[in-house]
């Protein structure tokens, strides 16, 4: 291969005047973290609500939950972000659309919300699976004790269900982090976008992508480590997810 390696490139000044190329990548990492954090919160909130709804006795609730999951799960994330960013503002009344278009950091808000809702469908699916994996007797025991449906979920079902699905939720969290890179298509200057900018400016493509690979790897490895700690901390001794 005819390639001019230059690992010192990270300490050279970037042409945007914001410091070195390393600074450029770290600025991207900040957006990746912010987007992933907001998206994860949205995914967990909506995922938990929709997941629970889908196990309720009420038929209309189950249908609504199913519709949510199918809608967000069956459309590619890239297309969803395009819809949120380019199409939705055109469908709104003119003033509202204009407000949305001129919102500062609109690609961040659109990206985080879009990725969050996309991931919520996956979280919902797992919450549902977690609840379904519990013996039916647990809910019946709750009813027998005189608990309302809400109380049964709050005190009996959800505490166990969430413990069971912690490992797959970790995977979803990592997916959320990785999916933030799709937001570069709507102009969010996150880590992958910055990496591509670096290769355009310097033509040192392999160095740039090696750095991005290592940063993503380190970020996700630390998240996995933290989630393992969390799993241990909340484990119920002697039961399903416990030891």
């Amino acid at each position: 291969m005819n390639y001019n390696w230059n690992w010192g490139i990270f300490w050279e000044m970037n042409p945007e005047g914001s410091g070195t190329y390393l600074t450029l990548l770290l600025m991207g990492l900040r957006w990746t973290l912010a987007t992933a954090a907001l998206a994860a919160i949205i995914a967990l909130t909506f995922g938990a609500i929709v997941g629970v709804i889908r196990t309720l006795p009420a038929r209309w609730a189950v249908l609504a939950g199913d519709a949510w999951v199918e809608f967000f799960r069956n459309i590619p994330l890239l297309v969803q972000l395009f819809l949120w960013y380019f199409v939705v503002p055109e469908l709104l009344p003119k003033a509202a659309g204009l407000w949305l278009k001129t919102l500062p950091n609109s690609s961040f808000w659109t990206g985080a919300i879009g990725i969050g809702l996309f991931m919520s469908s996956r979280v919902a699916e797992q919450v549902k699976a977690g609840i379904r994996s519990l013996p039916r007797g647990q809910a019946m025991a709750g009813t027998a004790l005189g608990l309302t449906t809400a109380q049964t979920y709050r005190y009996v079902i959800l505490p166990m269900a969430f413990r069971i699905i912690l490992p797959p939720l970790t995977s979803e969290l990592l997916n959320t982090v990785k999916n933030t890179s799709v937001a570069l298509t709507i102009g969010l200057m996150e880590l992958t976008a910055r990496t591509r900018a670096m290769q355009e400016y310097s033509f040192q493509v392999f160095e740039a992508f090696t750095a991005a690979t290592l940063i993503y790897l380190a970020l996700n490895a630390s998240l996995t480590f933290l989630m393992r700690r969390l799993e241990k901390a909340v484990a119920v001794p002697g039961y399903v997810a416990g030891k």
Partner: protein
Amino acid sequence: MKLVGIAALLLALPGLASAQELTGTLKKIKETGVITLGHRESSVPFSYIDNNAKVVGYAMEICGKIVDAVKTDLKMEKLDVRLLPVTSSTRIPLIANGTIDLECGSTTNNAERQKQVAYTNTHFLTASAFVSKKAKNLMKIEDLKGKTVVSTAGTTNMKQLVEANAAKNLGMTVLPAKDHAAAFLLVELDRADAFVMDDILLASLVASSKDPAAYQLSAEAFSLPEPYGIMLRKDDAPFKALADKTTSALYKSPEGAALFKKWFQSPIPPNGINLNVPMNAMLKKMLEKPTDSADPAAY
């Protein structure tokens, strides 16, 4: 540059070249019988796909001449030409690892990039300008004060925009877009007031838009015109010498001017639009005195 030119000429002398052991790209082409051209999919009018799914364009024709020259120089009866679409992200690794031998598109030639790849003689010069809707009446850089301005992420244009914003204290909101099409869409949908890009690319985006009459190009540019070149592998003197000799002869001949007229001043596929790019003094000089210099001041 002159020294390099003389060296290139010496290497390109036919007797000398055939007497020498073939190296690099030429050796590879001779052995495999294949030359691979990297092309762009929507870089009008340099290299793009027309309505017959054929790759056409100004840079493609120049590359065609280089291919012919390679075939003659290596005395090959048959030379397979393979086409591979590239993007701005894939073009460098594909050149470096030998997948493509020439990148025929609209790649800016600058000193920074020459550390990684080589360029043959400049085939076009373009300056950073901006496009906006006529109704907004923006002509000069000063007019962009306080406006929302978009450019394509990771381009030299973006860099110039950011610099001008800081230097002239314009207080613009600068938006990055993924590619030229997305950036233009932002202007079309009024998400941004102006789009800063190479003037030739802006002209082709406007020409192929739904309502070309609604847009105007700025009168003022952000930079001196920068050269576009066909990219090839670095440190491959015999191949570069052949490419330089071919392109130089082409540009100086009437065929060079005809080629320019064909792609920049006549209707081109797919929609028969005419970009109407005037042949200015710099472009004239570029054709009369071909050079591979990355320095805008050399033109």
